[in-house]
C-alpha cells in the first residue's frame, strides 16, 4: 500500500474541493425540500443533510471503474459520484431526462456511466448486490472495489449478516460503509440492537473494521483511502462505520417525536460543513472570498439543475411498458 494513495492532501485546492462537494449536497437538498413543499417533487424524499461528510469523504477514495451501491437517502452520493445535478433533479421531477428516466424517483437514482447501482429502498437489500458486483470483478480478474452504503438500521437485517459472512468467506473486494446516524427511521440504535458497537459486529466476521467520526470529512476521506487501498491490495472486504447524524426529519412526513430538539441542535453544532469551513479558514487554506465563490458556483449549478428539470418532458404514457424486460432477447 503506497502512502501517497492513503494520505489526504489538505492544500487549498483539496480543501476547496471538499467544501464544494459538501456544499453541493447541502444546497441541492435544501432546494429539494423547497421543491417538495411546492409539490414539484412527490413521493418520499429522504434528506442527507448533516451526513454530507460521509459520501464526500468516501467518494474521494474511489476510482471511476469502482461500483457504488447506495440507499434511498442517496441524492448526495449520486451527486458527488458524478451524476449531474440536472439529471438527478429531473429524476425527482419524474421527467424522462432524469437519471433513471423518471421510473425511479428520489429513492432509485441509477447511472451506468458512473457505475452507480442505485438507489435501493429495501433496508439491507443493497448489500448482496455489492457482494455480487465484487464477485463479478473477482472472477473476471478486475481490481475494482464495490462500495456499499447503508444505515445502521440495516445491521438488524439478515442480509447484513449473510452478506458480511459471504464477503469475508469468499474474499470479495467490498467496502461496506455503515452510515450510523443513530436512528433507524425513528428507532434509536440502543432500542434496536443488543450490541450497539457496529464496527465490532463486523469484526466478528473476520474482516478489517474501523469506526470514524463521520462528521469530519477529512477523517472519513483518510479512513476510506486506507480502506480502499487495503481492499485493492488484499482483495478482501473492509468495514467502515461512519458515526454521523441526520439533521432533518427521516422523510418529509416525520414529526420527529423520537428525539429531543436539544440533541439535534447539539449535533448541528458539530455539523460537517461548519466544522470543516471553520477549520479551513483558521488554517488559512480558504478565505471568505473562496467561500463566497463556492456558494455562487453551487447556486448556479442548482439553478441550472432546476431549469433542466423544469424544461424536462414527460415520458409518453404509450411507453409505459418500456424497460420491464428487454425489447428483444439476445
Amino acid at each position, binding site marked *: 500500500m503506497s502512502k501517497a494513495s492513503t494520505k489526504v492532501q489538505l492544500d487549498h485546492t483539496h480543501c476547496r474541493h471538499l467544501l464544494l462537494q459538501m456544499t453541493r449536497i447541502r444546497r441541492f437538498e435544501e432546494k429539494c425540500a423547497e421543491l417538495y413543499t411546492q409539490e414539484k417533487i412527490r413521493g418520499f424524499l429522504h434528506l442527507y443533510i448533516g451526513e454530507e461528510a460521509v459520501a464526500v469523504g468516501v467518494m474521494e477514495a474511489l476510482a471511476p471503474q469502482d461500483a457504488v451501491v447506495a440507499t434511498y437517502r442517496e441524492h448526495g452520493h449520486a451527486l458527488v459520484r458524478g451524476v449531474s445535478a440536472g439529471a438527478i433533479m429531473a429524476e425527482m421531477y419524474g421527467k424522462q431526462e432524469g437519471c433513471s428516466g423518471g421510473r425511479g424517483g428520489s429513492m432509485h437514482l*441509477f447511472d451506468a456511466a458512473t457505475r452507480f447501482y442505485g438507489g435501493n429502498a429495501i433496508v439491507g437489500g443493497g448489500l*448482496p*448486490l455489492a457482494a*455480487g458486483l465484487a464477485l463479478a470483478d473477482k*472472477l*473476471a480478474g478486475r481490481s475494482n472495489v464495490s462500495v456499499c452504503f447503508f444505515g445502521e438500521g440495516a445491521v438488524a437485517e439478515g442480509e447484513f449478516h449473510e452478506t458480511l459472512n459471504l464477503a469475508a*468467506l469468499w474474499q470479495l473486494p467490498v467496502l461496506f460503509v455503515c452510515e450510523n446516524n443513530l436512528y433507524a427511521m425513528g428507532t434509536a440504535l440502543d432500542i434496536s440492537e443488543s450490541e450497539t458497537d457496529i464496527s465490532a459486529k463486523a469484526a466478528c466476521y473476520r474482516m478489517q473494521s474501523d469506526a470514524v467520526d463521520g462528521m469530519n470529512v477529512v477523517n472519513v476521506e483518510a479512513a476510506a483511502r486506507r480502506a480502499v487501498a487495503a481492499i485493492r491490495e488484499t482483495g478482501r472486504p473492509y468495514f467502515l462505520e461512519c458515526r454521523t447524524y441526520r439533521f432533518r426529519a427521516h422523510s418529509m412526513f416525520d414529526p420527529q417525536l423520537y428525539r429531543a430538539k436539544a440533541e439535534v441542535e447539539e449535533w448541528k453544532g458539530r455539523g460537517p460543513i461548519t466544522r470543516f469551513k471553520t477549520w479551513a479558514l483558521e488554517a488559512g487554506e480558504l478565505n471568505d472570498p473562496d467561500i463566497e465563490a463556492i456558494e455562487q458556483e453551487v447556486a448556479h449549478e442548482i439553478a441550472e439543475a432546476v431549469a433542466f428539470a423544469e424544461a424536462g418532458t414527460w415520458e409518453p404514457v404509450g411507453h409505459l411498458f418500456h424497460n420491464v424486460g*428487454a425489447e428483444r432477447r439476445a
Partner: protein
Amino acid sequence: MTQISYRDAIRGAIRDAMQADPRVFLMGEDVGHYGGCYAVSKGLLEEFGPDRIRDTPLSESAFTGAGIGAAMGGMRPIVEIMTCNFSLLALDQIMNNAATIRHMSGGQFNVPIVIRMATGGGRQLGAQHSHSLEGWYAHIPGIRVLAPATVEDAAGMLAPALADPDPVLIFENALLYNEAAAMNGSVDIDIDHAALRREGSDISLITYGGSLGKTLAAAEELYVSGISSDVLDLRVLRPLDEDAILATVAKTRRAVIVDEGWRTGSISAEIMARLVERGFWNLDAPIARVCSEEVPIPYARHLEEAALPSISAIVAAARSVMGRSA
C-alpha cells in the same frame, strides 16, 4: 438414441453452458462437494473447480442477491435454490431487485441471471418442502418463469434462459428428476411458447411441469372412454402463451386446467380469467380446474395424495365438463 434422465439432462445443459461461456458459473447450497441436493451438479465441481461450482452458506438472500449483482457485473450466474420453499428467504432479492432494476434504472442495467429451484410435492416431505410456488412468481412483471415438464425441455431450456438479458426462473418438479426419455442429440428449444403434447378434439387439458405426466395419463384414460383430448403443456408461466391457450380451446370448446398450486389466486385462475376475457364465446361448457387442495401439504401419504392433483380427479373433471357421468 440413448435414454437420459431429467437430472442428467440439466447437468448436461449446465456443463455445455459452462464450456461455451466463461461468464457462466453455478452457485447454491450443496451444489459442489455434496453434488447437489438432487444430484444435478454431481461431478461438476471436479470438472470446473470451486470458483465456478460455488458452494454457498445457507444464506438464500445473500447468494441470490450476489447472483444478481454478479449478473449486473457482467457474469452469467446460475443460482440454484434447493427448493422453492427456501426461495421465500430470497424473495426480496428476486422481486425487489432482479425483477425491478431494469425498470427502476430506466433501462440502464439488466439482470441476466438464471435461478433454478425444485418445486412440487408427492414425496412425503411435509408442508415446508412440498409446495408449488411457481404461480406466485408468475405474478411478477420483469421475470420469466419456466416449468420444464419433459427431459427435452430440461436439456434445452437452460441455454436460451442464459441468453435472456433478463431474470429467468426455472422450476424443476422434484418428481421429474428420475424421469428418463430418449434424446437425439441437441435440441433447439424456445422459451416463449406452450407445446401441444397430445392432440385431440373434444376437450383441452391445460397444464405444466410435474402435472403433465398425470394429465397425459388422464388423457389416455379418457381416450379409452371415447373422449379425445388436446394436452397443452404451458412450459412458460410468464409470459403466458395466451395465443396457444386460446387456440386449443377455440378448437375443442372445453377446458380443464391442471395446476399443482393452490386454487385461490393461482396461475390456473389466471388462465381461466383469460379464457373468459378472450375466449368466452368459444366455450361450450364452464371451465374446470384440478388444483392442490387448500391445505399445507400433509406428511401422511394418503392425505398428501388426497391433497395433490390426481389422474382420477383430472378424468372426473374432464368427464364432468363433457357432461358425462363420473
